[in-house]
């Protein structure tokens, strides 16, 4: 919501910064897109070439887009395999005949090991062991997989070569769809019945402050890193800042573990669910208003929002009809896998966010009547962790660690996110009308980053593959790990102090 407000506020300046946005490039784009070209006048701009110079009445009322179109960006070569798939015309990297068996065996064994590790990473005994060690937060536990991805991509190991990454690309899209679907299926509206008064205010404040801090700081830093002249309505700065702000507002549900009272846990988990909703809405707005290059239809951002919601609802209804069938466990897995893959692929084909589309489908399924709920939840949660960990391997392979600007953004992301959360919680505790004890306040003010934040930036990486977006990925992954390390240190220090003689 804050993102939408910001877009609307910046709208006039953005339109002034690009007075002919929509009438030039976008209009040409509309001409290229044969299917939608007749409606171009009602979309992002007029199509002067088609009308022969004389303006039709509809064109006179056509408004410039709220956000200027994104400039053309060259596809990052390291991302090309995942985005475009394997190019049949490209020559394979030559390997000496004597080395070929070794390369094949290494690749198969390496991929198998990754899959086994991902499976074990989701096993309940491993989860219990992680919990005992205090590394149960999702990002810390998943970080070794990011490192494995980086190692696998390195030329010395060479497991995740371009062609292998191209084959694994759909897995990343499936993973994003799966995470979005799981977030949606948790969003049972009955969960929000009887919310204590002031809960929504807490959600608003703890989401808005980190969002605002991160948008401001990241826009400034990205401007400093860039060599281009500053323009307040520059769509690239704005897009990156909004993505970073949206990701930073997310919290992990594991922050409720420190609470002893069940009532507090329930309220806090609801707060986090509502924050996730805010994150999904943020991603929906970014993907709708900042259309990636190559989008064939030229429509206003609001139309893309409606299209995203419609696609999510269609996917939800379709999956609902599919899941009405009585199926064995293995068949049920096939249906679930196929449904999520189809929804994620449909969203990606239209250059929409697969996380958002799958989330909407998941929300509908969570709230429709039926007997499939428990079974579906069990299936989704069982595979959530292995799929998430395998996705992290691919994210690690795509992570550009050699860019120093990403490393600068990491601590800034961590500090401003926690500062925003802390300030939002302090204000909510003072004026929010909901009584919070010290533990509850700490859990809301100092939460680790949730997996949805990683999904949001990874989705952004797939939507806008090039330019400064890789910095955002570095900031969120690295910032998430730093946050968890910092919180662990803080928690251990607090435990030591409370055990010290003389402490009350």
């Amino acid at each position: 919501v804050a993102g939408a407000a910001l877009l609307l506020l910046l709208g006039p300046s953005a339109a002034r910064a690009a007075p002919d946005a929509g009438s030039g490039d976008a209009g040409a784009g509309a001409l290229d897109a044969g299917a939608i070209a007749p409606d171009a006048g009602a979309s992002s701009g007029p199509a002067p070439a088609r009308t022969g110079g004389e303006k039709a009445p509809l064109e006179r009322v056509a408004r410039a887009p709220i956000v200027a179109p994104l400039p053309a960006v060259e596809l990052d070569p390291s991302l090309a395999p995942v985005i475009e798939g394997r190019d049949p015309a490209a020559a394979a990297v030559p390997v000496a005949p004597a080395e070929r068996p070794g390369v094949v065996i290494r690749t198969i064994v390496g991929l198998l090991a990754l899959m086994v590790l991902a499976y074990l990473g989701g096993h309940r005994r491993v989860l219990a062991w992680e919990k005992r060690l205090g590394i149960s937060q999702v990002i810390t536990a998943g970080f070794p997989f990011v490192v494995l991805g980086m190692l696998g991509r390195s030329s010395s190991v060479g497991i995740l070569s371009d062609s292998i990454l191209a084959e694994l690309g759909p897995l990343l899209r499936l993973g994003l769809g799966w995470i979005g679907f799981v977030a949606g299926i948790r969003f049972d509206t009955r969960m929000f019945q009887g919310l204590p008064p002031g809960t929504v205010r807490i959600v608003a404040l703890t989401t808005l402050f980190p969002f605002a801090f991160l948008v401001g700081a990241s826009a400034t830093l990205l401007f400093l890193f860039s060599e281009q002249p500053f323009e307040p309505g520059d769509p690239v700065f704005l897009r990156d800042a909004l993505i970073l702000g949206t990701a930073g507002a997310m919290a992990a549900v594991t922050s409720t573990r420190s609470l002893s009272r069940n009532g507090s846990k329930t309220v806090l988990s609801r707060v986090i669910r509502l924050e996730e909703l805010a994150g999904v809405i943020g991603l929906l707005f970014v993907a709708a208003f900042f259309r990636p290059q190559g989008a064939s239809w030229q429509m206003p951002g609001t139309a893309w929002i409606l299209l995203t919601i419609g696609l999510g609802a269609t996917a939800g209804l379709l999956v609902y009809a599919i899941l009405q069938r009585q199926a064995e466990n293995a068949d049920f897995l096939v249906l679930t896998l196929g449904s999520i893959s189809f929804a994620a692929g449909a969203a990606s084909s239209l250059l929409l966010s697969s996380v958002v589309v799958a989330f909407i489908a998941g929300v509908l399924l969570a709230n429709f009547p039926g007997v499939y709920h428990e079974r579906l939840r069990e299936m989704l949660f069982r595979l959530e962790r292995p799929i998430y960990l395998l996705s992290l391997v691919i994210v690690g392979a795509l992570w550009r660690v050699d860019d120093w600007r990403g490393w600068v953004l990491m601590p800034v992301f961590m500090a401003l996110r926690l500062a925003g959360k802390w300030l939002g919680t302090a204000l909510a505790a003072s004026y929010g009308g909901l009584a919070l004890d010290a533990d509850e306040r700490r859990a809301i003010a100092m939460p680790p980053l949730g997996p949805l934040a990683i999904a949001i930036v990874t989705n952004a990486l797939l939507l806008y593959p090039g330019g400064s977006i890789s910095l955002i990925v570095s900031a969120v992954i690295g910032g998430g790990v730093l946050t968890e390390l910092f919180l662990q240190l803080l928690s251990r220090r607090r435990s030591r102090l409370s055990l010290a003689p003389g402490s009350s």
Partner: protein
Amino acid sequence: MSIFLVLVLTGLMSALGTFITEGKTSAGVSLTLGYLLLSAYFIGGSFKRIGLPKLTGYIATGVVVGPSVLGLIGGAMLESTRIFNGVAIGRCGPSSAASARSASTECSARRCC
């Protein structure tokens, strides 16, 4: 109901396929994989109901949606989904071996009795 679902899926697949221009994107592979899994499942089930093997239904699905008939899945996309051939064969091998072993154990047990 199964046929209706397959028709809806096919309509969506056909509409969405128009956006995948190069036919080799990972988005297209994800879409194709989902479509194939779902439509083959339903058509295989329909074949079973009329007394034909499910496998025949899966093959029929591939023939109909492939480049030869409807062309919903083009040649480039088929090339991109090649990894699933290997995975499927890898899955079928142990599964067939396990079935054969269990059948042979059953035969031995019968002989013993």
